[in-house]
């Protein structure tokens, strides 16, 4: 109940990085953003501190300076990567990805098996998997994001370490060659209401067989835990602000399961690993896994001892 109340209180709040950039939904072309409009949106939502942070950002003729915003977003993602590293996120994703890929191979899914990170940012997860994951030669690691600057940074970083991962400035659900398996990290809470159902509906392509989505888990611990962690670990004020807000705006497991069931009824969906070692200690992230029903048995078998962490099928 506390989680529902917290969620309802924060549902109207906006993350700063969500309102600093705008893209044409069809062409993904960057659109100019008026600084005063962003400030007004945040003040209207009662986010005065956020409005102050935006007021400090550079502008040109009243419009937010796109280059400065891109540099800021790259910097924010560098700090976000630290959070992923401290929580061993690459390994956690790999622990689920390997059994899912095993199930896909068992089912004879056409190769290459395309694993696509939706809203990949600077591509940390795909770069980590390319370096450490050992996914196999027939697996293609892809990342997609609307923001060309973040994708350029992802490519630069992948090239610097000669990592086999491809990054695209694209809508992940409108690729010429759809993905076999869609993943994401910290993306779901950005979609609210009908947008969340539409997000899952976007998975409904003939080739797409499964998904693994990690996102913040709301809990009684999330607000204070998130604040402490971001205060201790993040330097950029906007990254701190958005990081804390992400935790309090997170969707409950029930909301995610319902949205997936409504948007993508042809998939079996479940929550995975919501509590620490079976104790009543909520994890910072929960995972929504989904797959075509034919894959379920092989996936659970390939999970091995981790299968007991699969909770609440929708």
């Amino acid at each position: 109940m506390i989680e529902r109340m917290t969620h309802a209180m924060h549902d109207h709040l906006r993350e700063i990085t969500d309102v600093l950039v705008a893209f044409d939904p069809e062409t993904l072309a960057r659109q100019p953003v008026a600084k005063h409009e962003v400030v007004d949106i945040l003040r209207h939502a009662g986010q005065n501190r956020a409005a102050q942070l935006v007021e400090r950002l550079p502008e040109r003729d009243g419009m937010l300076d796109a280059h400065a915003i891109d540099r800021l977003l790259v910097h924010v993602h560098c700090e976000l990567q630290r959070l992923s590293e401290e929580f061993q996120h690459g390994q956690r994703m790999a622990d689920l990805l390997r059994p899912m890929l095993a199930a896909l191979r068992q089912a004879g899914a056409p190769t290459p098996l395309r694993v696509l990170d939706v809203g990949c940012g600077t591509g940390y997860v795909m770069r980590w998997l390319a370096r450490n994951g050992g996914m196999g030669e027939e697996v293609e690691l892809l990342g997609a994001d609307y923001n060309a600057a973040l994708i350029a940074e992802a490519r630069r970083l992948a090239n610097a370490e000669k990592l086999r991962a491809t990054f695209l400035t694209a809508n992940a659900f409108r690729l010429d060659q759809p993905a076999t398996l869609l993943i994401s990290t910290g993306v779901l809470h950005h979609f609210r209401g009908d947008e969340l159902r539409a997000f899952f509906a976007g998975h409904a392509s003939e080739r797409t067989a499964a998904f693994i989505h990690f996102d913040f888990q709301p809990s009684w611990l999330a607000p204070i835990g998130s604040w402490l962690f971001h205060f201790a670990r993040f330097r950029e004020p906007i990254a701190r602000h958005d990081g804390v807000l992400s935790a309090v705006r997170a969707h409950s497991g029930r909301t995610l399961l319902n949205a997936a069931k409504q948007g993508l009824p042809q998939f079996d969906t479940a929550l995975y690993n919501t509590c620490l070692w079976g104790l009543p200690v909520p994890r910072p992230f929960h995972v929504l896994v989904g797959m075509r029903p034919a894959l379920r048995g092989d996936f659970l078998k390939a999970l091995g001892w981790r299968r007991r962490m699969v909770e609440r099928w929708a």
Partner: protein
Amino acid sequence: MTLALLYLLGSLDGAFTGIRSAGGRNALIDKQRHYAIAMLYGFLVGQILLLSGVAFGMAVAYLAPPREPREFLDRFVRAGDYLLDVYLPYGIVMMCAFLIRAMPSVDIRSMTSVLVFGPLTLGRPIVGALGMAWALWHVPDWRVGMVCAYVLLAMLALDWILIWRWRMTPTT
């Protein structure tokens, strides 16, 4: 032994401050070189600050009344024992967390960050001040207090020095 242990703890603190200051500044996957350089930098700058503390201590010993260096050293060593009462457990907990982090469990590794490194980093200035207060409670000597305060402030300033250094260096 007391002074050697304090110097060792200060040196480790410098090295780990270097590592901490480097977090979130490099987006490559393999960061061994990045952290190795950062640790070395923190260690070296920490040495400069510690040695400046030694020099300050010697100046206090020889110049501050009653100008009895041997007596001052004895009192400082006694105070150092009380500093170790606080700083040694702090250091041991940190080192143990690093050892635990080597375990092949994502949950255990994550917990060392959330439950140990994060809180102890936030508490570092408080631990520093508590150690000094504990030492001065048992050895109330203004000269000892001056030297302790100098070294404490210098080691806390190390964070700011390294932040300044990173501001001059572009993020990778």
